[in-house]
C-alpha cells in the first residue's frame, strides 16, 4: 500500500510528510518530524501527555491520524515560546516548581494555554477541571494549579500594557 501525503503547518511552519494511513499524529510528530515534546503516556487518550492543538482545538495527538491534519494548523509545546522568550505559562511552571519528572509538562502547558485562550481568568475549580485530562503522578497538582493561576495574571498584565500602548 502507499503512504498518505500530507501538507499542513506545525507551529506556523509549512510541513509536508508521508505516513501510513493508520499512523497517529503523535507518531508523525515524534518519529517523522522530530518533535519529541508530545509524549506517549497511554496511547488511548487517557493521560494527555500527547496534547497538541489542531486548528486551535486541544486534542490528544494519539487519537488523531496523521492523515487527518491535511490543510490544518497543528500547535505543539515547541511552538509555545516565541523567539527564545518563554511563554508566561512556561516561566511560571519553572518559578512555581510545577514540574518534577516533567514527562506530563508539555501536555499540561498545551492544555493550560488552550484554557487561558478561552478563559483568561479561570477560578481554581475551572483550572482543575480543564486540566483533568492531563495526568500528573509527581506533584499532586497543587503547584501546577498555582502556576496556571499566576500565568493568567501575568497574561492579564501584558494585555493591559499592550492595550495602554495602543491607546497612546
Amino acid at each position, binding site marked *: 500500500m502507499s503512504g498518505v501525503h500530507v501538507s499542513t503547518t506545525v507551529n506556523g511552519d509549512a510541513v509536508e510528510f508521508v505516513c501510513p494511513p493508520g499512523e497517529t499524529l503523535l507518531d508523525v510528530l515524534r518519529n517523522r518530524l522530530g518533535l519529541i515534546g508530545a509524549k506517549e503516556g497511554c496511547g*488511548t487518550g487517557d493521560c494527555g501527555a500527547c496534547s497538541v492543538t489542531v486548528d486551535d482545538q486541544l486534542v490528544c495527538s494519539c487519537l488523531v491520524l496523521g492523515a487527518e491534519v491535511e490543510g490544518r494548523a497543528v500547535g505543539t509545546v515547541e511552538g509555545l515560546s516565541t523567539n527564545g522568550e518563554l511563554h508566561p505559562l512556561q516561566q511560571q511552571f519553572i518559578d512555581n*516548581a510545577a514540574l518534577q519528572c516533567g514527562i506530563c509538562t508539555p501536555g499540561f502547558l498545551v492544555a493550560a494555554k488552550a484554557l487561558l485562550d478561552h478563559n483568561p481568568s479561570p477560578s481554581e475549580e475551572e483550572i482543575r477541571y480543564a486540566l483533568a485530562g492531563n*495526568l500528573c*503522578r509527581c506533584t499532586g497538582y497543587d503547584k501546577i494549579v498555582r502556576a496556571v493561576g499566576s500565568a493568567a495574571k501575568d497574561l492579564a498584565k501584558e494585555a493591559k500594557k499592550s492595550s495602554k500602548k495602543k491607546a497612546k
Partner: protein
Amino acid sequence: MAEAFDTSYTDQEFKVIGSRERRPDGLDKVTGRARYGADATAPGQLVGLILRSPHAHAKIKKIDTSKAEKLPGVKAVLTSADLPDLTNGNRGNFDILENCMARDRALYDGHAVAAVAAIDMETAKQALKLIKVTYKKLPHVTDVDEAMKDGAPIVHPHIKAADDQSKSTNLVNASTFGHGDTEAGFEQADFIVEESFKTEQTHQGYIEPHACLATVGADGQGELWVTTQGHFTFRSVCADLLGMDIAKLKVTSSEIGGGFGGKTHVWIEPVALALSRKTNLPVKMTMTRDEVFRATGPTASTSMDIKIGATKDGRITAATAHIRYQDGAFPGIWGMLGAMTAFACYDLENVQAVGYDVLVNRPKVAAYRAPSAPMAAFGVESCMDLMAEKVGMTPVDFRLKNAAKEGTKASYGPTYGPIGIGATLEAVKNHPHMRARLGKNQGRGMACGFWFNFGGQTCVDLNISTDGTVNLTVGTVDVGGARASMGMIAAEELGIPYEDIKVTVGDTNSLGHNDTTEGSRGTFSSGMATIFAARNAVEELRARAAQTWDIPLEDVGWEDGQAMPLGVKHNNLHPLSLKEIAKASPRTGGPIAGHNEVVADGAGVSFASHICDVEVDPETGSTKILRYTVVQDAGKAINPDYVEGQMQGAAAQGIGWALNEEYIYGADGRLENPGFLDYRIPVCSDLPMIDTQILEIPNPNHPYGIRGVGETSIVPPLAAIASAVSNAVGVRMTHTPMSPPRILKAVNEAKT
C-alpha cells in the same frame, strides 16, 4: 576516602541552602527538549516488541518462531533459549532473568514469552502475531489468602515449606520483628482492639512507560540509553544476565518520567540488549501502557490481622500484627519491610510483627515508594483510632502518649536517635486544620507514617573551569529536583553563586558505582558526597593560593568563595577569589577538581503525620477530599519547593490508593483494567490544594542534618482517609480502595 571526612551534623550558617532556587532541568522540560527513555533514536534502529502470555499460569510446550523469522523486515526473534542461565546459583538474578523472559512456564498474565526486532513497528507487530506458542493452561491463584491455603496452585514447586521440605508452598518467607512478651502485655490491657484489613494491589503509575535503546556491537561492547532510577545497578544486572563485562556496557540514564520504585528493577532492558547482540543493530523498545500495568511494577496486595491492647489511661501494653504480602510470581522482601515498619512510630514494651511473603500468579512485585509501609500503617493506624475511642482520648493525644522518642527501642530492633514523630504530632495537634468546623456527611482523620532512609555507595566529581564556573557530576538519578539541591550544596561549600554550577547526572563510564536512587537516598547520599568533593576542591584552591602568595597552606583560609591570607603578617596580601585562582590554574598546577567516593551510611529515619477532611455522599458512597495537610520531618530542607513537591506527590498517590486505585483480576486470572481509564489515579479535579508543613529535626549523621523526604508521606494517607471516611459515615472501613461500591455496601450493611 570517606573516612577522611567527618559526617556528623554541624549547625552551620547557610547562605544558599534553604532557598528556592530554580531547577536546572526546568527549561528543557517546559520547552519539550528534555529527552526521556523513548526520545532517543539511532541510525538504522530496529523496533523491539515482546509477546506476552495471555494466561495467568501455563506450561509453555512449544514456541514456533519459524513464520515470524521468515517475515520480510524481521531481523531477530528471541526466546528464553537466547537468554541462557548464567547466574550460577544466584537465585535473585535467576528470578530477574525468568521474569524478563519466561522459561518453561508463563507465571502471570503479561509474562514475556518471546520477543522480536524488526525494521518498523508494523512489521514487528505482525511478527508477534506469527509466533505460535503452544500453552497448556495450569490452575492459577491470584489472591494472597487463597494462595496460602493447602492445595492452592503452586507458583514455584522448588520452594519448599520451612517446616516440611517435602511440601511445596507459596509462602516463601515469614519475618518476625519485635520484643517483650505480647501475651503478658495483652493481659495487662483494659481494652483490646482486634481487626482485620485488606488492601488491593496498586501500581506506581509513572506517566512514562519503560523505554530503552540498546546497542551491542560485534565486539560485545554495548550501550544502553534507558529510563531508570539506577543506571549503575541496571548495568551490573544486565551484564550479569548477559555475560558481558561491566565496564564494556555503558548505561546512560535518560530524563526519567517518574519511577517511584518501579524503575529500580530491569524488565525489557536485558531483552533489548540480547536482541541487539543478535542483530548488532540498535534496538529500541518502548512499553505500551497495557504492558506497563500487566508486566511491571505493582506493589503488593495485602491481608492482615492487627491487635492492640491498652490500659484505661491510654498506654499501649502490647501490639501484634500478622501481615500477608502478595509478592506476585517471585519472592521479595515485602513482608519483612511491612513487619519492620508496622509499629515503628510507637514506643512499645511488648510488640511483635510478622510479615509473610506469598507467591501468586501476578506480576513480580516491585518497590513502590516506602514499599510495604502504607499497608501496614493502614491496619495499625486504623486500630490506633479505634483504641483512642475506647480509652476516650483524641487520636492525636493517644498517639502522642505512645509515640517513640530518642532512646526508644524501635519495634524493628535498634534504639532511636533524635526522631521527629513527636514533633509532627505536636504540629498536627496545634494546626488550625484540626479546629476547622465540619459539616454534614463530613469527617476528619489523621494518621502517622514511618519510613527508613538509605545511604549507600555514592561518588561525585567536581571540576572547576578556568572561568570559575563549575561542573558537578553526580551518579544518582534525579527524580525530584536533586540537580538543583546538589548545585545549591556545591555553591554553599565553594561560596559561589548557584548559577555558576552546572550539574549533570553522569553515565556509567564517567563515575564510579552509585547505588540506585531509592530509599529516599539521593539528596542524603549525593549531598554528602558533594559536600566532601567541594571541600576537597577548596583544599586545592587554598593550596594554589598559598603557592601564589608563597605562604604556608595553614596561613590560607577560605571564606565566601575567596582564599583569605590569615594573620597580620600577611595583611599586605589581597584575598584571591575562586575565579582568580581558577583563571591562574593552568600555571599553578593545572585543572582544579574535587572528588569523593563514600558509602553514605548512617541515614536517619523519617516520620510524617497527615490530616484529612472528606465528605461522603451517603447515597452513592462517593468521597470528596475537602482538605489535606501534610506534616513531615525533612531533617534539613535543602530546597523547600522540591521537599513540598515530594510531600504533596506522595500524599496524592496515597489518596489514589485509598479511594480508587486497584488491580482487578477476573476469574480467568487476567488483569481487567490495564489502562489509565479504569486504573483510576487521581485527576486534577479530584484533589484540593495539599498544605505542607516542613519540620527540621537534624539527622546527626549528616553534615547538614539531611533526612530523606521522598517516600514517607505515602504511608499515612490510607489510614488518615479511612478514619475520615469512617467518621463521616459512622462505619469503620477496613478494605482499600474505599471505592464508592465498597463504601455504599458498608453503609447499607450498617443500616440493616
